């Protein structure tokens, strides 16, 4: 069983989806608890994976490697290293908790949970696969359930949002596909195996494609594909809409896991495979990261819709990831991946909390509340905690990762980093301002009878809060998990750059 | 008699005659006879090749099975013909055209 842990953790939700399809649709409880049980088992497996994971090694572990379509040298190749292990854990965790945020969906429960589990499998597959082709398949597998989950169970503008999300991502996927095929045909022998592609990285730097340096062309192709998922500045407008229209649990997944796929893709493919191009594009990427940080924060300050504000805060927070990644220093890289994990937990909390108040008040207008702390003290307390975690207060994990990315980026991109620190103030600005308008001041008489947060919702939130707090006080376990791999990655990319004379 | 081709030509003629029977006869029983001719032609081929080419008994065994099959087929086919007769009073195959549309 130990040899197939990754397959199990990836395909378990597919089995679950099939099982749920077989349940009669009237048996609501079985469907919900079934989904919870499946994701719960998946989470246990994810923890099991971490328990057998060798922290000291930076190599790919728990490998499952078979020929799949030998004619094209496509392989079924799963494995995780310090980069994907945190993401596997995050995916399993958020999927499990998001089931509890899905309790209140009002129609077609069966389809919802089946699609949800399919989505879960797709996400897990993206993080575990090491064959580019397989990766791409999972990447696309995830897209379709997402479209339906937003388009059917979303808010009033759901169809528009879903189509927008779908087209945006599909556009990115096409470029991704092109980049993938270019890599395939430039590699010798033709392969999709990411590890082999990484070994051949030097030849991509020299090959010519479309009259230009192949490495750079492919980098840009992959960049657009991944940037849309992150989302990086000019490709971000699907995000506020999709988040606002998606049901709570899907927003949680979107922000918590999907956004990480973009940056994960960079670190898994672009960085090791196109090392020289990476160094070449590091500066533009850092600038884009800065734009993300400031632009996202400014847009968040302007929002009146609570969920939109949180969505833009994601744009801002992902900017830190980008900045740390582009810096290519150990601190920056570790900070970036740690920030990916932390943003996963923190934004998940934030979206769940927005969902809680939306379920009760049926709107999310920040100005439409006021003084809620009086009637819903527990909710106000948990929200305060999440907001402070979001604005990077020391003692919460977000602080460490943001600090690490900035410290790591500073020697490389001094001025950019200096401007990026302004983002820290802006983060505090919109979170506190929103908090004040929603929870403080005179109680809005409309909400005198507002119910406080219930046990189920707390059950989904508390684990996240504990993780955020624990990693904020004691980040070592998570950093140990990732640092060996990431330091190696930095080393490899840097030395390739040296060799190429960059 | 020591040439394979003499057997093969016999088999081909037998097969053609059987085929002709199957294609042209109206009577169900006659068609069945044509089928038997075809099967016999095939059998001759098998056994001849067994003697002249493979030098093993596999061809013989296939023939045994074909004969067995022919017997079974004849039994079932006759049952069908009888049934057809019971239903229609004749066994003219060209009038059994329920397949048309």
């Amino acid at each position: 069983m130990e040899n197939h842990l990754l397959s199990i953790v990836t395909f378990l939700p597919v089995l679950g989806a099939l099982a749920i399809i077989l349940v009669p649709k009237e048996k609501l409880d079985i469907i919900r608890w079934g989904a919870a049980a499946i994701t719960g088992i998946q989470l246990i497996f994810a923890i099991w994976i971490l328990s057998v994971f060798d922290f000291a090694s930076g190599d790919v572990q728990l490998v499952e490697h078979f020929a799949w379509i030998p004619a094209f040298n496509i392989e079924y190749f799963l494995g995780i290293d310090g980069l994907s292990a945190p993401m596997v854990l995050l995916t399993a965790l958020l999927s499990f908790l998001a089931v509890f945020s899905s309790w209140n969906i009002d129609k077609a429960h069966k389809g919802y949970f089946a699609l949800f589990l399919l989505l879960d499998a797709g996400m897990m597959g993206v993080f575990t696969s090491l064959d580019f082709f397989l990766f791409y398949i999972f990447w696309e597998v995830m897209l379709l359930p997402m479209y339906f989950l937003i388009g059917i169970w979303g808010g009033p503008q759901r169809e528009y949002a879903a189509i927008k999300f779908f087209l945006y991502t599909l556009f990115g996927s096409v470029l991704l596909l092109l980049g993938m095929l270019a890599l395939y045909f430039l590699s010798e022998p033709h392969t999709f195996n990411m590890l082999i592609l990484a070994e051949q990285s030097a030849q991509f730097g020299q090959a010519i494609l479309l009259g230009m340096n192949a490495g750079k062309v492919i980098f840009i192709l992959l960049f657009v594909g991944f940037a849309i998922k992150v989302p990086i500045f000019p490709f971000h407008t699907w995000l506020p809409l999709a988040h606002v229209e998606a049901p709570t649990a899907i927003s949680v997944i979107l922000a918590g896991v999907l956004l990480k796929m973009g940056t994960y893709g960079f670190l898994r493919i672009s960085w090791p495979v196109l090392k020289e191009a990476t160094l070449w594009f590091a500066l533009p990427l850092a600038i884009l990261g800065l734009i993300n940080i400031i632009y996202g924060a400014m847009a968040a300050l302007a929002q009146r819709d609570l969920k939109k504000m949180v969505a833009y805060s994601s744009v801002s927070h992902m900017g830190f990831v980008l900045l740390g990644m582009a810096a290519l220093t150990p601190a920056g890289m570790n900070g970036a991946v740690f920030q990916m994990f932390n943003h996963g937990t923190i934004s998940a909390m934030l979206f769940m909390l927005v969902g809680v108040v939306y379920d009760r008040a049926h709107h999310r207008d920040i100005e439409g509340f006021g003084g809620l702390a009086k009637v819903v003290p527990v909710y106000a307390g948990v929200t305060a905690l999440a907001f402070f975690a979001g604005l990077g207060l020391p003692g919460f994990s977000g602080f460490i990762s943001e600090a690490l990315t900035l410290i790591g980026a500073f020697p490389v991109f001094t001025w950019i980093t200096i401007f990026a620190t302004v983002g820290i103030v802006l983060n505090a600005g919109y979170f506190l301002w929103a908090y004040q308008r929603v929870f403080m001041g005179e109680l809005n008489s409309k909400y005198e009878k507002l119910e406080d947060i219930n046990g189920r919702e707390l059950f989904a939130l508390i684990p996240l809060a504990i993780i955020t707090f624990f990693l904020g006080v004691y980040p070592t376990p998570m950093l140990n998990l990732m640092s060996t791999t990431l330091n190696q990655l930095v080393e490899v990319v840097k030395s390739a750059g040296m060799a190429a004379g960059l | 008699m020591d040439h394979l081709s003499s057997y093969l030509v016999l088999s081909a003629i037998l097969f053609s005659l059987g085929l002709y029977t199957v294609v042209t006869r109206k009577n169900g029983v006659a068609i069945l006879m044509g089928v038997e001719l075809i099967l016999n032609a095939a059998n001759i081929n098998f056994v001849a090749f067994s003697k002249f080419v493979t030098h093993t008994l596999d061809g013989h065994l296939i023939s045994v099975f074909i004969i067995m099959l022919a017997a079974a087929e004849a039994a079932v086919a006759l049952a069908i013909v009888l049934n057809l007769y019971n239903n229609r009073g004749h066994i003219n195959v060209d009038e059994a055209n329920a397949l048309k549309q």
Partner: protein
Amino acid sequence: MADFIFWVIWILIVVSAGLVAFGKNLIHSVFALMGTFLGVAGIYIFLNADFLAVTQIVVYVGGILVLLVFGIMLTNQISTAKISQSSVQRGLGLLVVLALLAILLTALLSHDWVGTTQPLAFEETARGIGRLLFTDYLILFEIASVLLLGALIGAATLARKEL
């Protein structure tokens, strides 16, 4: 001598089979078919297939032919011995079949069989067939038995009046 007998049998088969195909009287056709079956049994002997020759006679002549006669008798009034039969699309059929025959003959005659093949006279085949039947062909044998059983039941069911 053997050659002569071989060709006699050869011609017997072709003629009787031609009668089956072209004969007007169904009864004649059936009896001509018996000639064909016997002839084929003779050919088997020339091919050193003793077991098959016997089986041919037992099953075809003793079984199938009787079955056919029964079929004809049951579906026609037996008042007259002559049961005429008619044919359809004779011209087209003949054309196609002749064309096929021509193709077949050209195909097999264009090959030099004499130079490439070597006849082997089997001493006796029954033992070998039996051994093979219960070793290599065992599964086939079992399937055949099931098939026969199925055919038996099927035929019995179909032949019943009140279907």
